[in-house]
């Protein structure tokens, strides 16, 4: 088969995956996921467990070591069937605490310690790098197989350049689809679906080759069984020690591998999916392993001695002249490699950005303002991290020279990530486990793994000198990397497994028992261990002194403006408040922290809120709650606390309502005397000048001048009366609306022209985005324009910037249109924000600029009548108002 055709097929396949991911992303954004959010897709996405190592390597493994390859499938099967409750707890915690990665989980459980997050991140990156290199190698090897049988004399491709193209392509794909959303909990539906498609391709390819081998080359099942019996494979003995070790190792890996955690926990949409996967995933694994032995046996039989058994699955169909089948297998292997690399690099990038880059960034720029959009930093950090992870994988591939050492690296990587398992299990099931224990355990396990397994894997003399191998570190014979404490004669893998995990667990237990945990660790421990018992954990925040506006500014930096405003508005609404600023109740702070955790990880989110709340987050009461070891008592007291908090909040709301009523009553008096003043002022002028005019004896130019004053003041009187009438009509809901289709852009044009006549006349820069204004609204155009004029005039009157600017931003979403008017002045002080929409609420005398103080009250009434709203947007720098109108107003609001 021509090599070019192969490249072409690869590219076509990647384009197809692009299309799948793209379409699904679009549907996810539109909220139309449907069957794409199903147990089937979830189960298929779990199949990234089967990487190229399993796809190609399993046959090789079987050809070399008989049935031992099955251990790699037994482990996950046992976990999914037997340890289902563990997975359920993981998924529950992941969803409840918006866990973004396994590093985040460990860090969050042990007192939101970022040190732990960093350690797990480093371990994951170190263990994953050779594994990614392995995937690159498999793609390069499979290319090579095709090239070597190419008859037309095309020289085989340079493996290095193939690998770099594959790495670059994967990095691009992953960056495109893996870093579209910031909130890692918002998930990557596009990628997951592409992975599911790849899972199908893998399975179909393996089954197709298997069927071809059994019924195409051999004479059916009976013949194959006879061949297996006759082959060397049947002579292999089961070694109980090694089997147990490998099964345990693969079981640990399926829980702790960053990519497995990503698809199993982070991308999980529904806990119910896990129940389905608990039998469907083992079934998938069984189908994947069904034909491994027949392929190995037939391969050994048919192919020349010395052929690479890892490539049997590809070389068998090629040798039999089945080009199309070989192509399918090739795509299956390509799928296995790409899906693993994509998900792994997303998972690692999330860890790197949340635990390394963002904490550093925040430390370097702790006081950055609202304009500094942290989301961009996070996204760029993830993009760079993805590129870096792939570069590391490529670098490892180049340095190791694609050597045979890579073949063993899968298990070594498994053992590396398995070092997280003790901390994870202790975190989920042992409340006494604490940060120091976890730290000690992880470091011990990691060091021993590196010393006994990872570094020796490069071979004697490469990373560790031969002397170390034979005589031990510093010449101490009990420190030989493959015979620790004199345990000679063990299988190196099992030796490393035994010592690293045993010492890991011992260190974890000793550390936890001998040191005292911080209060936050105890709270988190209780919350994680008892995740199923009480949804209400103890409040982690005492009633905060944080300024809601400061919280909002911070949330906007991380979640983005829209998401933050929506979150704050709905929280305010739940508290029975208008506007965008909820009280910083403990419950709200918890909610906010959880949302931020989904973007930047638990440790960073906690640190950021602590900074604003400005004091220790755990109080004596919290400590007392922790001290009671009985979960029931704690839950009960938590409920009491919640109820008490609810009462306090209600009392606060009542007090606020009362204050508002009193203010309103004062305002009503002020309203009447204000009306009186506003009416008397023009009347005074009119009366005085009309008397002057009737007294006669005036030069004609004075008569004209004074006549004009009378005219102007009469008009002013009329306008005031019109406003009052307008307001009363709007308030009574007796207003007649004229609904028509009208161009938003034209309305804004009209309003800007009209508002230009507002005093004081000065130059004012208007920023508009005309394309976004190309919307036709079905509404009362005159009324809406009236609101526009009012807001623009207000900006002209009150904006106190030296070079005043007004930005008009239009957005359309779900049948509603929002129009923001944001100026660059000082804005409206917080204490006045809730008053400005009241009648005659001209803020201070110093600020008055000639209006009667009815403008915003009229605006609010008009917007209510138009089925929309007007609200003050806090935290925008200057004064900012957001109008919301329905795209199509269908019936009269009255």
């Amino acid at each position, binding site marked *: 088969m021509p090599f070019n055709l192969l490249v072409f097929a690869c590219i076509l396949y990647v384009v197809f995956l692009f299309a799948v991911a793209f379409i699904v992303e679009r549907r996810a954004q539109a909220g139309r996921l449907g069957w794409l959010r199903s147990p089937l897709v979830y189960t298929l996405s779990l199949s990234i467990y089967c990487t190229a190592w399993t796809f190609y390597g399993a046959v090789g493994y079987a050809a070399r070591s008989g049935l031992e390859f099955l251990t790699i499938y037994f482990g996950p099967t046992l976990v999914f069937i037997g340890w289902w409750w563990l997975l359920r707890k993981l998924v529950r915690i992941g969803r409840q605490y918006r866990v973004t990665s396994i590093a985040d989980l460990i860090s969050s459980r042990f007192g939101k310690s970022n040190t732990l997050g960093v350690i797990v991140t480093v371990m994951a990156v170190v263990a994953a790098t050779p594994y990614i290199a392995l995937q690159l190698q498999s793609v390069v090897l499979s290319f090579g197989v095709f090239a070597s049988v190419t008859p037309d004399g095309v020289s085989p491709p340079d493996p290095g350049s193939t690998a770099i193209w594959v790495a670059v392509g994967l990095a691009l794909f992953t960056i495109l689809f893996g870093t579209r959303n910031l909130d890692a909990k918002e998930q990557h539906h596009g990628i997951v679906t592409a992975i599911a498609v790849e899972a199908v391709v893998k399975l179909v390819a393996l089954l197709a080759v298997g069927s071809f081998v059994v019924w195409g080359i051999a004479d059916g099942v009976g013949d194959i069984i006879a061949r297996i019996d006759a082959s060397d494979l049947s002579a292999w003995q089961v070694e109980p020690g090694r089997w147990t070790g490998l099964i345990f190792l693969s079981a640990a890996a399926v829980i702790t591998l960053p990519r497995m955690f990503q698809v199993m926990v982070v991308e999980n949409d529904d806990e119910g999916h896990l129940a389905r996967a608990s039998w469907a995933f083992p079934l998938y694994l069984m189908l994947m392993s069904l034909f491994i032995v027949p392929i190995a046996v037939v391969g050994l039989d048919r192919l020349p001695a010395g052929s690479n058994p890892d490539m049997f699955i590809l070389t068998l169909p090629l040798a039999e002249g089945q080009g199309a089948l070989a192509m399918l297998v090739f795509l299956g292997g390509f799928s296995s490699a790409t899906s693993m690399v994509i998900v792994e690099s997303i998972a690692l990038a999330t860890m790197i950005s949340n635990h390394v880059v963002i904490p550093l960034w925040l430390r370097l720029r702790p006081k950055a303002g609202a304009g500094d959009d942290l989301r961009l930093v996070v996204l760029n950090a993830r993009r760079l991290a993805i590129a870096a992870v792939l570069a590391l994988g490529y670098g490892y591939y180049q340095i190791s020279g694609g050597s045979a050492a890579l073949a063993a690296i899968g298990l070594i990587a498994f053992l590396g990530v398995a070092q997280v398992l003790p901390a994870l299990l202790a975190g989920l099931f042992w409340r006494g486990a604490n940060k120091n224990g976890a730290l000690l355990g992880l470091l011990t396990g990691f060091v021993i793994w590196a010393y006994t397994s990872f570094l020796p894997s490069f071979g004697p003399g490469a990373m560790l000198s031969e002397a170390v191998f034979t005589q031990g570190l510093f010449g101490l014979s009990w420190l030989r990397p493959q015979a620790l404490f004199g345990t000679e004669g063990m299988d190196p893998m099992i030796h490393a497994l035994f010592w690293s995990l045993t010492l890991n667990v011992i260190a974890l237990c000793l550390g936890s028992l001998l040191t005292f945990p911080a209060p936050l660790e105890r709270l988190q421990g209780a919350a994680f261990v008892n995740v199923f018992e009480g949804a209400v954990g103890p409040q982690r925040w005492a009633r905060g002194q944080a300024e809601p506006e400061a919280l909002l500014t911070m949330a906007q930096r991380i979640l983005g403006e829209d998401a933050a405003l929506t979150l704050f508005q709905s929280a305010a609404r739940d508290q029975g408040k208008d506007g965008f600023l909820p009280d910083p109740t403990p419950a709200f702070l918890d909610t906010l922290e959880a949302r931020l955790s989904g973007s930047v990880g638990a440790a960073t989110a906690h640190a950021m809120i602590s900074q604003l709340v400005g004091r220790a987050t755990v109080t004596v009461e919290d400590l007392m709650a922790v001290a009671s070891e009985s979960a029931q008592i704690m839950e009960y007291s938590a409920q009491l606390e919640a109820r008490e908090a609810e009462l306090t909040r209600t009392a606060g709301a009542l007090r606020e309502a009362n204050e508002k009523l009193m203010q309103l009553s004062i305002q009503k008096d002020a309203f009447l005397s204000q009306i009186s003043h506003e009416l008397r*002022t023009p009347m005074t002028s009119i009366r*005085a000048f009309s008397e002057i005019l009737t007294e006669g004896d005036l030069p004609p130019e004075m008569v004209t001048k004074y006549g004009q004053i009378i005219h102007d003041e009469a008009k002013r009187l009329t306008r005031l009366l019109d406003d009052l009438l307008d307001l009363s009509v709007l308030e009574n809901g007796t207003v007649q609306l004229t609904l028509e289709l009208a161009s938003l852009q034209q309305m804004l044009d009209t309003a800007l022209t009209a508002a230009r006549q507002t005093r004081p006349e000065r130059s004012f820069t208007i920023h508009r985005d005309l394309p976004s204004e190309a919307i036709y609204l079905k509404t009362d155009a005159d009324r809406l324009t009236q609101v526009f004029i009012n807001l623009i005039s207000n900006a002209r009157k009150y904006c106190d910037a030296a070079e005043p600017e007004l930005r008009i931003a239009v957005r359309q979403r779900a049948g509603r249109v929002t129009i923001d008017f944001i100026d660059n002045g000082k804005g409206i002080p917080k204490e006045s924000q809730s008053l400005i929409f009241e009648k005659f609420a001209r803020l201070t*005398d110093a600020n008055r600029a000639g209006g009667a103080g009815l403008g915003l009250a009229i605006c609010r009434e008009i917007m209510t009548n138009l089925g929309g709203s007007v609200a003050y947007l806090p935290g925008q720098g200057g004064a900012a108002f957001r109008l919301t109108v329905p795209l199509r107003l269908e019936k009269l609001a009255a």
Partner: protein
Amino acid sequence: MTGHVLLVEDEPNIAEAIRFILARDGLRVSHLADGLEALAAVRGDRPDLVILDHMLPGLSGLEILSAIRADPDTRTVPVMMLTARGRDREAAERAGADRFISKPFSNAEILAEVRAMMNR
């Protein structure tokens, strides 16, 4: 009739009307719209009469009146207050205003009041 009247009023049209009426009667009228400037003018120019509007930007009429009465140098300057609100009269009285005129007023009324005060 001669004398110097300081008029403190932020509505330009009302100020123009009063200025016209008093000037026609021979009085010298200086007009200020800002409270702080007005306070400085009372101290510096020693007008024979201050006509003070109640609602002013910056310092309110009442605050200016209190400041005038608190300063021994200006304590005796006669002050007439223009009030739009009926019940503001009480507060103005306590602050030491000599006379009140309610808006809207007739030209004859304000002229008579001013004459009466200037002749004391």
